[in-house]
């Protein structure tokens, strides 16, 4: 594959990672807005918990981003090998999610969580070898 081909594949991987991260952050933000499902279920039952999720706009934005990420993955797979695209996008998503969770969701991403994200990211890389 020539340089422009490589650049195109990595651009597509970048799009997948961005959309997957946006989807994860929007879903996590939506669920945090809704609250603990166990508490909701104890007050208004399973129907109440499902309704709380289905009435949240941020949840559907998250699902839309996840769906777009999935279709971007399918598109990328028509251009490049699955052994590159799938692990590369999964591993990079771990890292971008850690940054997004720290800066957007204001999570406490301490040393332990950074080490875990890096270990899992490296592990996914080696699984693709």
């Amino acid at each position: 594959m020539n340089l422009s081909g490589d650049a195109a594949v990595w651009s597509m991987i970048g799009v997948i990672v961005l959309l997957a991260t946006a989807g994860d952050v929007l879903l996590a933000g939506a669920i945090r807005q809704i609250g603990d499902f166990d508490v909701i279920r104890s007050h208004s039952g399973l129907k109440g918990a499902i309704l709380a999720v289905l009435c949240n706009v941020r949840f559907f934005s998250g699902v839309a981003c996840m769906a777009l990420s999935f279709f971007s993955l399918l598109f990328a797979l028509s251009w490049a090998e699955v052994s590159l695209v799938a692990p590369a996008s999964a591993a990079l998503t771990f890292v971008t999610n850690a940054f997004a969770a720290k800066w957007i969701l204001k999570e406490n991403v301490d040393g332990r969580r950074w080490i875990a994200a890096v270990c899992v990211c490296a592990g996914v890389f080696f699984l693709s070898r």
Partner: protein
Amino acid sequence: MTFRRYLVLGAVMIGASVGDTFLSKGMRQVGPVSLHHLLSLVIALKNPWVLSGIVFLIVFFASYLTALSWADLTFVLPATGFGYVIIELLSKFWLHETISPARWFGIVLITVGVGFVTHGPSYTNHDHPGAESEAVTTSDAEELTAAGREDRSA
């Protein structure tokens, strides 16, 4: 972390990994799908392995949302990364694929990462930016919630 919450994390891992493996087995039976005949993907839905895979992926999504309701994203994602290990083990012992030494090393790294994150707090509260040092654990948050309920009832 209660035992029930570990079960939810387990459902996330098993739902994703078994779902993906079932989809993979089903799509092998269906055969390659051409970009010019994308409608044949609909026919793939008739395959029992593909259908079972979708059911497991629905279980994964429901468990994933449940886990996010009481844990941080940076806790849930690495903790459920063990699903990749389950996929590798299913590939080896069920689909009879070969696992190279590099892959075994990857499995070890993921297991170490999961061990790291699950020994820490699952949830941290941040009412204002820069409150990392005031982060509280799930058990602290539960106590605060219980205290709040008592205050309201009084």
